[in-house]
């Protein structure tokens, strides 16, 4: 069974919201997870790890990759004069899509180093070894002189049902409980549908 990218994007957005991120950040999460899948990485599993960590007590011990990632993208222009550096980022694979959003704004490839392991990132994908640790002690992002590369993109998600279920669990927190009053008042016409 496979999933369309748009339904995964919607699920990832709702899951992030269910875990407590603002709607604006959740929208970015949907885009990031889609990017990961298109780059042939298991974006849903990666997001699942982040959301479970964010909901646990370990969250004090490292930095959130979603917030770090959004900062990388929002401050892309800073890469014109600086290298961006972070310490201790959880589930660092989640940084790749945001680095690609920076590359898109700069119109050139960027180099992301996770504990010195390098990734060259363009808007449509990356070059590098797809092996990630649970936490990156040191993260560096810099602009390169490399032009943008075109990468092959996957257009369906075929991950495990367990992974999907984890995200659905978080997404379910955004649904209001079903009640008789809600069913009666919330939607529908006032006449029967047997006309």
């Amino acid at each position, binding site marked *: 069974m496979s999933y369309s990218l748009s339904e995964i994007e919607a699920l990832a957005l709702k899951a992030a919201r269910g875990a407590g991120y603002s709607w604006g950040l959740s929208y970015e999460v949907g885009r990031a997870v889609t990017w990961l899948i298109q780059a042939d990485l298991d974006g849903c599993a990666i997001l699942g790890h982040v959301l479970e960590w964010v909901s646990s007590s370990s969250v004090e011990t490292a930095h959130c990759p979603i917030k770090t990632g*959004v900062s990388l993208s929002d401050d892309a222009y800073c890469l014109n004069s600086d290298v961006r550096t972070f310490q201790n980022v959880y589930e660092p694979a989640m940084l790749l899509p945001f680095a690609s959003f920076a590359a898109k704004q700069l119109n050139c490839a960027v180099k992301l180093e996770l504990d010195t392991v390098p990734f060259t990132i363009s808007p449509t994908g990356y070059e590098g070894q797809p092996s990630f640790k649970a936490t990156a002690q040191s993260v560096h992002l810099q602009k390169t002189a490399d032009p943008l590369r075109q990468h092959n993109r996957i257009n369906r998600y075929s991950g495990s049902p367990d992974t999907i279920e984890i995200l659905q669990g978080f997404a379910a927190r955004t649904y209001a409980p079903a009640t008789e009053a809600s069913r009666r008042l*919330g*939607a529908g*016409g006032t006449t029967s549908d047997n006309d």
Partner: protein
Amino acid sequence: MKIERRSPSQVMRLSRLGSFHQCRLSFMRQLTRRMAREHWQFERPVFDIDDRGVGHAVYTTDTGQRTYSLIAFAHDLPDDQRSDRVIAEAWDATFTLFDGIPTPDDIARLSENVPYQEAGRISETELTLSRANRSVRLWNHVVGSLAKGQQPDPVMVNQVGYLMRTTAVYGSGKFGAADHATISTRAEFQAPFQAEMLTVYLIRTFVRDLVNHMAKVRNEDASALDPSLAEQLGIGNSTGLGMAPFLINHPVLFNNWIMVREEALARVRLIENAAVKEKDLFLEIWSRAKASIRDWQSEHPIQIEKLTALKADIRTLENVLSGFDWTQDHPWDAIYRQARDLSEEAQELLISLMLEPYPQLVDDLACCMADTLQHDHVVDGAMTIGKLKSLMSEAFDWTLEIDWAQKDANARAWYVSAEKLEPRLGERFDEPIADYEQPLAPGRDARAASVDLENWDDDAPVSAFLAAHPEHRQTVRRAQLHSIAPYSEIRDNTIAADMKPIDMLRAKLSFFGATRFDPRSDRWVRICMYVGAPYPEDLTTQNADFWVYPHLPA
């Protein structure tokens, strides 16, 4: 004299959007014109329905480059299970549009999923998922009449307008269907919602065939439904709240639809002289449109009031047109200006009709109605606060006129129910739903962001503001998008106590090409699609465009 596109402050108000009418840019008519122009071939390779009306059928359409197949499953639905709402679990008929010609294995797989709709899964070889329920009264009357060798009562046929109505037509990757991006590179699917419009067009043919079949089951000497009556039957649609969030969540797409129609209007107003045949075509369409307004019925007080005003304004316009000097300069602009004191229903009807004589000026705009920009847009953190404030002002200056401290201004909250994920609208202060509120109040959110922006230095980067205020990210995104999409924001409070969701539903449905808007509450509307359209075997370039206007009796 300067003629420009109407401004967003004039157009993007809910009461005007809720008065839109179909026009030649509608997605339905773009499809019928294409199918005729490209000589799409239609066949029905399978019609395997038993005496209880249960089974399946396959309708194929060959575009010359590709083939698409509607697979229809017919069910025997007990009356007490019939519901148009998202929470329904069974239907009279269920459908999917298959990308190609289905094999027996495909049919078997789909027969185990499509009848369950949201509870099943489809795959990348399916483009849409849909279901329909009967109009019980008309269905029974038509089957009964045909079985007696008679034709149904044309007045009832006209009154109801459809034998079945769809209660959802899902596309764009939902429930596993192919993503829109994977098919929108095909010329036939570049325009919005073409796969959905094709699905409904084929459903209509199936429904006609099914009613004939059920009459024959009852009596093998039954008559077939007269083609002229069949033509007056469309496919109804029962539309609820799910469609309203769409307009807010796809601001650039919505902008494109509006901007194209406004551009078309401006082009027609700029025409210096109306040729005789253009004037004659307009007057003919005007008469036919008036006839369809006479047939437009609703029991809902909101619509009754709008129809009363519309009918009065039509009489006024009739007087204007009967004494009108067509030789004057810029005649269309003159008519347009005469209508400016009339109801919005009348103004928007007139605008739609004015576009009809000018396919050469209007139809090429259709390719601008799709959108790929929004999905690729990245928030620009380098933008200065000063620039952001000016963009916010353009997009959201209207929010200054609302007193957000009033309870009425915040009365509603949009939410999704755990019950089959049905979109609902609730009363924030009376129901426990505020914690589940969906982000569908861009006006309220923009006002809150503006307050927080007041203390920021104009030279600071937006990224710093967003780092301090992640809760304002959506507002910043929308303001940045608005700079390239001036018609993207609805300039009304979408959580106000008196907000009518049907205004948003009607705006979207008018672009689909729907007619006969019949609200059943402030958040539920029935409409009709393809009323008057030729069936596949009769479709030609002569009848593929103006079918939406009923022919006048000889």
